[in-house]
């Protein structure tokens, strides 16, 4: 069969390659379709892997290729990829940001190479798409590297804002677009191309400077979308249907996640698209000082929890920082053994990327059917004996429902204040990332559990007699 194809007319191999690309496209779509449920999701990986192997194999069938250099590149990439696939689950957000940067780097480099190979004989349309490809690609490279740096805490996590920030960013983008238009009209002006890339690279840096930790889920989704769109643009340039499809899938995934995240933070999608972050950070006055709060010891907390019938745990990024998820699992075991119904309420923006909390709790062996989305569980808080908040703050702030002057007014929250008793594990009374005071802590049904999340949960477990040391 293969011999037949080899001896056939030159077009036959081309047709075979296109057919392999078609199969790969179908497998990619199936791969995402199977992600709809945890029971079928692993089929999705296999479909994706087979599609990838077929597509790369098909590409290698092209004649007259220098295989040695290609093989070196594939091996080197594999050597770098294995440790990147092996990071700790708490480091997944920065790994994801880094891989957005790698993907965009690939697209930008291929686009740049195509520019120098094709100019000056390039059609205006092709030049427009190529400009779009490299501008989106380049800003995603630096933007994602900045996001990864902030998440890894190499860079300061605090959002950096200055006057006229949006104007500077807008002017930079306008410059890049002006150069792109010039290149479309005069593709011979090759010296302008590196300037356009440099502007896009600096735009990516400036776009992420004003981003704080709490905005990361939206930003990572948005960068994901940009990476996908730039890959789709590359598909137009190379006239590759497979690449257009993969880019469109990735782009729509990133955009859908950005929309979900921005809704969960009550931001308009355009507000997110144009990177107008950081504005929520404006702190909400000093507030009255030294309002009375009630606090409890681990023994008291254990007593309340063991007397409860229904408990909902609300995890936040603080749980991940304290590496408390395994202690939380022990608490879950100890309470379940006593017949307490324990569930977890997951806010869409809890953590540093979409779905972050689910992965951390799944890693700690908490069954996924105990992890409930915000819309589904919010109605259950009034019938809940104890809501235990671990390392979450703004997503439980009742001011979002009632206080029209609050910077987070209108943001959907978990209604923990409606539970009979609320217990909040927190290091101190310092406000959260957004610097917003949380009136929850002064409610009559609220108890503060001061301490490190991991140590405090460990102490509760010991009191319940279910600890392993």
């Amino acid at each position, binding site marked *: 069969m293969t011999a037949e194809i080899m001896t056939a007319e030159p077009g036959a191999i081309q047709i075979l390659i296109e057919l392999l690309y078609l199969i790969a496209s179908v497998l*990619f*779509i199936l791969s*995402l379709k199977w*992600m709809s449920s*945890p*029971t079928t*999701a*692993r089929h999705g*990986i296999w479909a*994706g*892997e087979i599609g*990838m192997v077929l*597509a790369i194999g098909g*590409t290698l069938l092209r004649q*007259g290729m220098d*295989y040695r*250099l*290609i093989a*070196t590149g594939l091996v*080197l*990439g*594999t050597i770098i*990829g294995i440790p990147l*696939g092996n990071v700790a689950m708490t480091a*997944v957000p920065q*790994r994801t940001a880094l891989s957005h940067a*790698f*993907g965009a780097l*690939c*697209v930008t480099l*291929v686009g*740049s190479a195509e520019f*120098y190979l094709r100019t000056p004989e390039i*059609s205006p349309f092709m030049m427009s798409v190529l400009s779009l490809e490299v501008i989106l690609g380049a800003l995603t490279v630096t933007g994602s590297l900045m996001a990864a740096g902030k998440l890894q805490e190499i860079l300061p996590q605090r959002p950096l804002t200055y006057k006229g920030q949006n104007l500077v960013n807008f002017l930079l983008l306008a410059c890049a677009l002006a150069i792109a238009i010039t290149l479309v009209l005069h593709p011979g002006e090759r010296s302008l191309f590196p300037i356009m890339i440099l502007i896009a690279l600096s735009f990516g840096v400036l776009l992420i400077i004003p981003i704080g930790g709490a905005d990361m889920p939206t930003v990572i989704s948005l960068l*994901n979308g940009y990476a996908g769109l730039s890959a789709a643009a*590359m598909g137009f340039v*190379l006239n*590759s249907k*497979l690449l*257009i*499809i*993969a*880019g*469109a*899938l*990735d*782009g*729509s*995934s*990133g955009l*859908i996640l950005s929309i979900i995240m921005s809704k969960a933070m009550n931001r308009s999608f355009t507000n997110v698209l144009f990177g107008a972050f950081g504005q929520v950070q404006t702190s909400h006055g000093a507030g009255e000082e030294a309002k009375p709060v009630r606090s409890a010891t681990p023994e008291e907390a254990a007593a309340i929890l063991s007397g409860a019938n229904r408990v909902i745990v609300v995890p936040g990024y603080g749980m991940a920082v304290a590496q408390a998820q395994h202690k939380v699992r022990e608490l879950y075991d100890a309470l379940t053994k006593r017949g307490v119904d324990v569930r977890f309420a*997951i806010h869409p923006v809890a953590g540093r*990327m979409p*779905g972050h909390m*689910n992965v951390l709790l*799944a*890693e700690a*062996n908490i069954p*996924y059917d105990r*992890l409930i989305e915000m819309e589904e569980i919010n109605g259950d808080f009034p019938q809940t004996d104890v809501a235990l908040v671990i390392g979450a703050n703004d997503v439980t702030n009742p001011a979002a429902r009632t206080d029209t002057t609050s910077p987070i007014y209108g943001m959907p929250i978990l209604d923990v204040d409606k539970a009979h008793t609320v217990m909040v594990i927190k290091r101190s009374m310092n406000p959260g990332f957004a610097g917003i005071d949380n009136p929850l802590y002064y409610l009559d049904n609220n108890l503060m559990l001061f301490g490190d999340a991991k140590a405090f949960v460990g102490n509760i477990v010991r009191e319940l007699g279910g600890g392993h040391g």
Partner: protein
Amino acid sequence: MNSSSALINALFIFVLAGFIGFEVIRRVSPLLHTPLMSLTNALDAIAVVGAIVLVGEHKSTLSTVFGFIAVVAATSNIVGGFFITDRMLKMFKSSRPAAKPAAPSVEK
């Protein structure tokens, strides 16, 4: 190759694939949003085919060097992306007793 009919074809494919993407990804459980992102990241690295052609055809030094770095970057995304997605999905277990313990994966 760059005729306007090829362009129209490409636009059709882009728009239709975008629709499929929206419909399929809307149905992805929020439980799995993190593995979804690492999976789409790996799939997006199919851009490696463009880089492979650049390296293989060896048209200029610049295009070969850029292509080579692009192959390395995209391959690391493919390998790392599939690998970590698989690790994450293996952790998601239902509270119903698991049928069998997951075997350690050595693939890729």
